[in-house]
């Protein structure tokens, strides 16, 4: 029983990290119809810049803030100079963002060297509580809480604010929103920056969780995020959240019981979803 509970918490925490990454992908796709293959690169940049700041200043909060700022800046640059010229052309978008991914992950090695960096949780998040035999690792709970907060925040932003209204309308009909005198380009940049910031946040949170960060992790986690987005349905935030939790949990349990099949189970999940419900479990707002 303890094992199951521990695995559940573990899986939830991983799921939340993947959610942070996947939700940006799905938002950007849902509104702008851009599939950002460089998303993993933003994730890795968030991790490196955040962990580096954290190790320099000793404050994890500064690290998190630094990662988010890195994500926002990179997101702005990418939207402005890379993605904007290729709006409306899917093949070019896919190709170009993959190129950006490549450059981003190699640049990491130039700036911070090819070796992996190690990271530990800060003192106040280190350690665990023990509750009747169940060990609650503080840092994992912290990640889960942040994931839940981000989810609630996004739901609030999309469903209760004027910006969210415009975004939702933009998803439905871009031209109409434009015709109403709203500068949809500005909204696009904002959404892109938000998605990038969330990816970077996921990256810095991953650091102390896995203990090490390395340049290839961007690609690894991007693949997980893609799987989540396919399972959940493109453009659906709730879908991404549930699919991320599903992937996190199945990963944690499989890693414990059948370690060799841990990655294959995600592929299997995705294949099954694609066969029976190609548009994902939750049809995106686009559908």
């Amino acid at each position, binding site marked *: 029983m303890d094992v199951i509970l521990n695995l559940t918490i573990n899986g939830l925490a991983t799921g939340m990290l993947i959610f942070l990454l996947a939700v940006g992908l799905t938002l950007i796709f849902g509104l702008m119809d851009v599939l950002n293959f460089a998303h993993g690169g933003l994730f890795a940049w968030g991790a490196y810049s955040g962990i580096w700041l954290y190790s320099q200043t000793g404050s994890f909060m500064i690290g998190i803030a630094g990662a988010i700022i890195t994500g926002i800046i990179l997101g702005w640059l990418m939207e402005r100079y890379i993605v904007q010229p*290729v709006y409306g052309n899917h093949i070019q978008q896919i190709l170009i963002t993959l190129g950006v991914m490549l*450059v981003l992950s190699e640049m990491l090695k130039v700036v911070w060297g090819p070796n992996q960096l190690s990271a530990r949780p800060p003192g106040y998040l280190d350690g665990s509580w023990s509750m009747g035999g169940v060990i609650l690792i503080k840092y994992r709970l912290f990640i889960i809480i942040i994931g839940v907060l981000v989810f609630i925040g996004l739901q609030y932003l999309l469903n209760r604010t004027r910006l969210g209204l415009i975004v939702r309308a933009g998803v439905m009909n871009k031209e109409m929103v434009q015709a109403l005198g709203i500068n949809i380009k500005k909204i696009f940049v904002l959404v892109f920056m938000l998605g990038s910031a969330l990816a970077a946040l996921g990256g810095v949170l991953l650091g102390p969780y896995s203990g090490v960060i390395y340049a290839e992790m961007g690609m690894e986690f991007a693949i997980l995020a893609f799987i989540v987005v396919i399972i959940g349905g493109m453009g659906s935030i709730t879908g991404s959240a549930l699919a991320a939790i599903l992937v996190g949990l199945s990963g944690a349990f499989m890693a414990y019981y059948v370690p060799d099949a841990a990655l294959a189970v995600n592929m299997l999940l995705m294949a099954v979803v694609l066969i029976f419900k190609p548009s994902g479990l939750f049809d995106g707002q686009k559908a």
Partner: protein
Amino acid sequence: MRFLTKSNLFLIFVGVLLILFPFINDSRSLLILLTQVFIFAAFAMSYDLLLGYTGIVSFGHAMFFGIGAYSTGIMLKKMDNTIGFFLLSLVITILLTALLSYVVGILSLRLKSHFYAMLTLSFSGLFLVVAEKWRSLTMGNDGFTFSIPAVFKDRIVFYFISFFFMVMVLLFLRRFTESPLGRILQAIRENEQRTESLGYTVLHYKVIASIVSGVIAGLSGSMYAITLRFVNTAVFGIDVTLDALLMTIIGGVGTLFGAIIGAGLIDFAHHWLTGLAKVYWIFERWIIFFGILYILTVMFFPLGIVGTAKHWWKRRKIKGEIQMKKTA
């Protein structure tokens, strides 16, 4: 005499030059480099069939390449290093890659292009993990060496074999793309809905394209393993796919010769930049230059070398005709 057009004469000339090359030149490294160019040219052409002729973006082309490389490597190591087992490994490659591309194609090609790109990327990620974990068969990340059939050991013989391989792939794909089936693929690239409404089952044709492309990629992987006499998990890496992508795009999407020229350029640039890395440290990270070059190509040079040249020719021709009409 349509066969003896200017461009065909030029091609025959280049072909003869390449055949004579080993007798003129005695640099071993150049010979090996050209052998690699031939193999990668075949690989890039198979990619171009997807990207250029059908309009499908695949990020998992490395998995077919890797399957070919591993099945040849494993057969030659575990069984015996004879021609027979090499041919058997080719058969295995063809079966495996055809099956895999069929499954992946059926799963995802009825969806939008993004899904195919993502799904292939994830599948090749899965193969990379399997190759790393299944140590008894693949020796994990370290890879393994194997000895090759005696005939292939002569670099010059193998040079001709890979040249022949490339030419065969070129002729086959040329025939394939110019056949009625190939025309349908190009119609799909141009306008999927219209092709569908003309009564063609688009999925059916897309799957055929992905199977042909996958099998050729697998065969190039087998050939590649023979040149290296060594296999490791790098053959499943994303860089392999990216190389094919870059070769296709730089050379010119939708032109088979573009893929060949792209392969030549990229392989030579590879070679040259790795050489430079010993002098300037920044070139150790040459992938950055490739990445930037690639982004710039997609943005500003979308037709590639051969595509741009063709475009330019056409415009010149039209201009010339107008001039003629004016003077007449």
